[in-house]
């Protein structure tokens, strides 16, 4: 008689359960018989770099940094789009031209905003 073709899966599951349980049981027995556990506040501490953690993890960043993001977009990211636009300028359809103008308008708006905020002022 042929064994059930799914038998090996059952055997596999059994082995997969027993295989990790044996070392866990051995470790548990070792702890019970020989080595007493010695937990402590420092041993159980979350961080293990030797330095105690300071303050909260839930900190907030200042929202004022958005001005730097705007300046970065205007003077850095915009150039990446402007160069291919300038290269392909003559062959562009009207829709693409208007789209890039809208994009430029949005960024110029940001530039005006940053200018009015005094972001472009050179501070000594």
């Amino acid at each position: 008689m042929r064994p059930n073709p799914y038998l090996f899966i059952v055997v596999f599951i059994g082995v997969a359960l027993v295989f990790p349980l044996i070392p866990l049981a051995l470790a548990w027995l070792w702890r019970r018989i020989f080595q007493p556990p010695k937990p402590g506040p420092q041993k159980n501490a979350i961080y293990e770099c030797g330095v105690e953690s300071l303050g909260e993890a839930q900190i907030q960043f200042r929202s004022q940094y958005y001005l730097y993001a705007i300046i970065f977009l205007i003077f850095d990211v915009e150039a990446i789009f402007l160069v291919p636009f300038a290269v392909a300028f003559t062959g562009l359809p009207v829709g693409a031209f208007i789209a890039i103008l809208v994009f430029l308008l949005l960024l110029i708006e940001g530039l005006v905003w940053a200018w009015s905020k005094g972001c472009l002022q050179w501070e000594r």
Partner: protein
Amino acid sequence: MSEGIDEVLRSKLQRQGVWVTSMQELYNWGRKNSIWPLQFGLACCAIEMIATAASRYDIARFGGEVFRPSPRQADLMIVAGTVTKKMAPQIVRLYNQMADPKYVIAMGACAISGGPFKQGYNVLKGIDRYIPVDVYIPGCPPRPEALLHAFMELQQKIDEQKLSGADKAAHLESEQPSEYPVPAFGKHDLEPPANPNVFHPPAIERQS
């Protein structure tokens, strides 16, 4: 445990191809050949420690090549270099976070006693003031061979540790602490300046 085996019988069996061991020997054999040091260097001795781990000296021959970046996975702390008073609490805390059994090698003159910087206002005069040290290596810095020698000494020490009985290994005693008090910064010095339960300086006998 190993007292139960007759040595003559064992060597006879061994000649017949039968290897008899005890749980204690098996345990110590496994431990001493897989000492994982903490990846932790403080000063110039750390360069020698790195050289010991690298291919020329190759601490992997002794089973100690797995330098762990986490104290929870390390068995051995090699205090390699000058311990400043700023660093001492961190070292003790790292030692506390290591899992038992744990061992300490004080590498170099600075880790033993403060070394050439002993007179410095911010140098700890030996890490053995706060944590128990198993092997001391003199030298400034010690050569990699000296560190390997210390490693072998530690292996020998581990091999001789008893698993049961009155003189069993310290980490198996439930009364023996696994954590030691971390010194804090006081007004002038670390508080306390030394842990009296750990620090036993040799008494100086002066002839009058």
